[in-house]
């Protein structure tokens, strides 16, 4: 099973020319926790609300600095043809909860996040649960 049908194509992006403050405002208005930094449709970074809080909140970075200051490391990406187990293994190996998904030309096509996978796996598990045992009420744990 490839990750292609599981990815979210709604990814909020910013340009490298934006400041950290502009990116923060954009995150707020779009109600998202991270933005992809795109250059010629290719992802060059991923910045989260936490990155901004820890860098600017502690005074280590001015909010007027370019967003690229926070996107110094290339983001962890995955090809859209990657299998789900390989994508999960990549998240585990890299210690990330989001993968930016790209096509064969390196252009971003979406994002795959732990937050999307947990409900999906939960539904599968619930379906499996209902096949192995009739529904009953468990006492509180």
């Amino acid at each position, binding site marked *: 099973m490839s990750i292609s049908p599981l990815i979210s194509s709604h990814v909020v992006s910013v340009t490298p020319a934006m400041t*950290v*403050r502009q990116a*923060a*405002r954009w*995150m*707020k208005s779009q109600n998202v*926790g991270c933005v992809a930094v795109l250059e010629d449709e290719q992802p060059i970074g991923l910045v989260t*609300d*936490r990155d*901004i*809080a*820890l860098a*600017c*909140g*502690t*005074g280590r970075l001015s*909010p007027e600095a370019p967003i690229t200051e926070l996107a110094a490391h290339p983001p962890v990406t995955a090809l859209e043809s990657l299998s789900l187990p390989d994508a999960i293994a990549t998240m585990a190996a890299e210690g990330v909860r989001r993968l930016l998904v790209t096509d064969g030309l390196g252009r971003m096509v979406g994002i795959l996040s732990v937050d999307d996978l*947990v409900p999906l796996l939960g539904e599968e*598990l619930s379906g499996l649960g209902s096949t192995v045992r009739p529904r009953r009420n468990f006492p*509180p*744990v």
Partner: protein
Amino acid sequence: MPVSEILTAPILTIAADASVADAARTMHDHHVGALLVTREGDLVGLVTDRDITVSVIAEGGDVERTPVANIMTREPTFVREHAGIFEAIRVMQRANVRRLPVVDQHLRPVGIITADDLLIYISNELGTLAQALFRGLERERSELGKLKRA
């Protein structure tokens, strides 16, 4: 299983009149995303890394001059330390939050339980169950092998 036994984050509090910069430094130094906000020891709010970004940085605020009380979530939904993990999940669902302060019988804060803590706990339990199934299968194979040889 009570939630108090699976808390992973250290118990971190910050005074309501401390600055947002102090909160950011505490979050940075202790690798946490949220702090319990207290006034004279009582829980009065919860402040997250996201609150700092969207309420101060995005708005051009001064992190050194803005008190945590201005951006915190007031009177956050909480659970008691003896609440079970399934109860904590239901409370998170109802309140639509992924972090809950955990308090003792005197409503004093003892920690924060996160959706990640619960996911890790349940996943580990499932992994242990999978191991039990796998070992059962292995044992049966080995016992059948002995029967065939006998």
